[in-house]
């Protein structure tokens, strides 16, 4: 899967809270509910969860820990692999560029759209959202075209930057920025839709009161609207961080457009893990890398669920 495209629905979660709180009041099951029927309904899902969610993780941990070289040998092998640190540096550079630009731009665009007339804003939101349909390899290919100075509609910008040929554009030093652009292009629209929805929950009276009190558009945006979407910005940052460490599709597909470019088959940690497993049958070391990455995702998810108060389900 590509860098996490936004689930188009997180709006559901905040909105749904009202409903679920009502459900939370139900301490005792309603009269007549069988206490065993529930197992029957969740059975298939639980089987899938155990077989495809828990078992692979347990097996990967087992592989990562089992080694003739002693406890933790696979992890130290992975950390000492000369390809390991560069791979992490690559994704961290990508994440830094992506998160900073996406946060600033998404917030700015949302606030601007929200100050427009409703219908006009809707048109822009739709236009920004469309690239979200092109996840995975498709969006990378679109950007291969956009980055090719000989055919791109953005050729004038590329020429201005001094890139005359495709391989100039995709020079190794540019890759983190290029992946950040791709991720922003497919993902930003979804977040804009979500945050716009959050802004629409602001009561009209509040905005009117601010206006009557002499607050101008900027003050309203920064003092009233921004604090109200802060939670979503944090949510976006954390999800993007966890997803960014998993980068795989973009460097892999870009690597297929060889053209003598220096993108290795182990540019990102996930690629390195796959490279070790598929080329050298180094399953234990690959498992160790996947556990490190998995830990990132798990920690982030757990923090969000327990501390983030975004999912007050019960």
């Amino acid at each position, binding site marked *: *899967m*590509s860098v996490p495209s936004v689930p*188009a629905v997180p709006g*559901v979660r905040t909105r*749904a809270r*009202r*409903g*679920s709180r009502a459900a939370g009041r*139900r301490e005792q099951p*309603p009269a*007549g509910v069988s*206490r065993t029927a*529930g197992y*029957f*309904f*969740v059975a298939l*899902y639980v089987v*899938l*969860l155990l077989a*495809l969610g828990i078992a*692979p993780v347990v*097996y990967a941990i087992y*592989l990562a820990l089992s080694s003739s070289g002693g406890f933790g040998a696979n992890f130290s092998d992975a950390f000492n692999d000369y390809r390991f640190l560069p791979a992490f540096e690559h994704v961290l550079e990508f994440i830094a560029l992506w998160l900073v630009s996406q946060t600033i*731009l998404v917030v*700015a*665009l949302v606030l*601007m*759209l929200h100050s427009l007339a409703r219908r006009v804003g809707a048109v*822009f939101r739709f*236009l920004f959202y469309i690239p979200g*349909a*092109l*996840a*995975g*390899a*498709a969006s990378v290919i679109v950007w*291969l075209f*956009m980055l090719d100075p000989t*055919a791109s*509609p953005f050729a004038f910008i590329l020429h201005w930057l001094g890139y005359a040929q495709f391989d100039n554009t995709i020079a190794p030093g540019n890759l983190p920025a290029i992946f950040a652009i791709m991720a922003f292009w497919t993902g*930003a629209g979804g977040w804009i839709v979500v945050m716009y929805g959050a802004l629409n929950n602001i009561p009209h009276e509040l905005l009117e009161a601010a206006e009557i009190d002499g607050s101008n558009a900027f003050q309203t945006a920064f003092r009233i609207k921004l604090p109200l979407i802060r939670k979503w910005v944090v949510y976006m940052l954390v999800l993007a961080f*966890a*997803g960014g460490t*998993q980068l*795989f*599709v973009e460097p892999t597909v870009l690597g*297929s*457009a060889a*053209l003598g470019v220096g993108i290795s088959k182990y540019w990102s940690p996930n690629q390195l893990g*796959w490279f070790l497993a598929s080329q050298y049958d180094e*399953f234990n070391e690959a*498992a160790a*890398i*996947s556990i490190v990455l*998995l830990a*990132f*995702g*798990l920690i982030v998810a*757990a923090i969000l669920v327990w501390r983030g108060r975004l999912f007050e*389900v019960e």
Partner: protein
Amino acid sequence: MALPRRHAIRFVGLVILLFFTAFFFVPIIWLLLAPTKTDGQLLTESPFAFGSLSTLAHTFHRIVTYSGDSLLIWLKNSAIYSFGGTAVAILAAIPAGYGLALTEFIGRRTLLGITLVVMIMPATALVLPLFLEMNAIGLVGTIWSLILPFGFFPFGVYLAYIYFSSTIPKDLLAAARIDGAKEWGVFRYIAVPLARPIIGLVGFFAFVASWNNFFLPFVMTYDNSQYPLQIGLQQLIGSTASFNPANYSAGSSVVVLHRPDLAMAVIIAIAPVVIVFLFAQRTLVKGMLAGATKG
């Protein structure tokens, strides 16, 4: 003085919005127009010029018949994996959401907590562990190595849970239970008929996630006859002259693809998702808001 300043700010804002509209939308326009032109026209004509319908037909024919109808094989594979995964996801998620929302059993809260954690974890984090597991039990290269993981869809369970806990009137269920309906009967004859929107919503998200998945089929499939479209697209880059000129020395007998062919392939690959999205939009929005309006 205040008025001109306000106009200036509005103007700057408009320029920024138009810039980003171009950023988001120009690539799409370019992609749609590219197959109507020849590779040479792509380089010489305006990026927004329309080529001709006959060129479009020619490009379509070239890419569809390329390398023994490969594109059609990938399309068929994508359909099998995605519809299979979606079917499993619906069969598992709808009853599970109902069970979590409206029945009581030991471990219910724990299961809900685990579901939330797995749901927000990036799906890619499980790909390598899944490969290691499937490899150990010998399922790599079979359709099950894709359909089953696609069918494991905690986000769908969460959506169904929210839907059932906020839209089904509790009194209705209580009345049915008092009338002696068994729990299965309540689910089958009351909950399921009311759950159409959420079935559509879970189905849509499961389908799109499966259709667009790249990493999982990348590790689970071996050859052309098994690839879904996402992997096929990557293969096509390798055959595209402008991206891999070294592969095609002069006089080579290999059929070479050009940029318009690749653009056509991308359009074919994303078409199903876009079509489903456009047609289902109303239902989707309804389903998404369903948890919000009542409660």
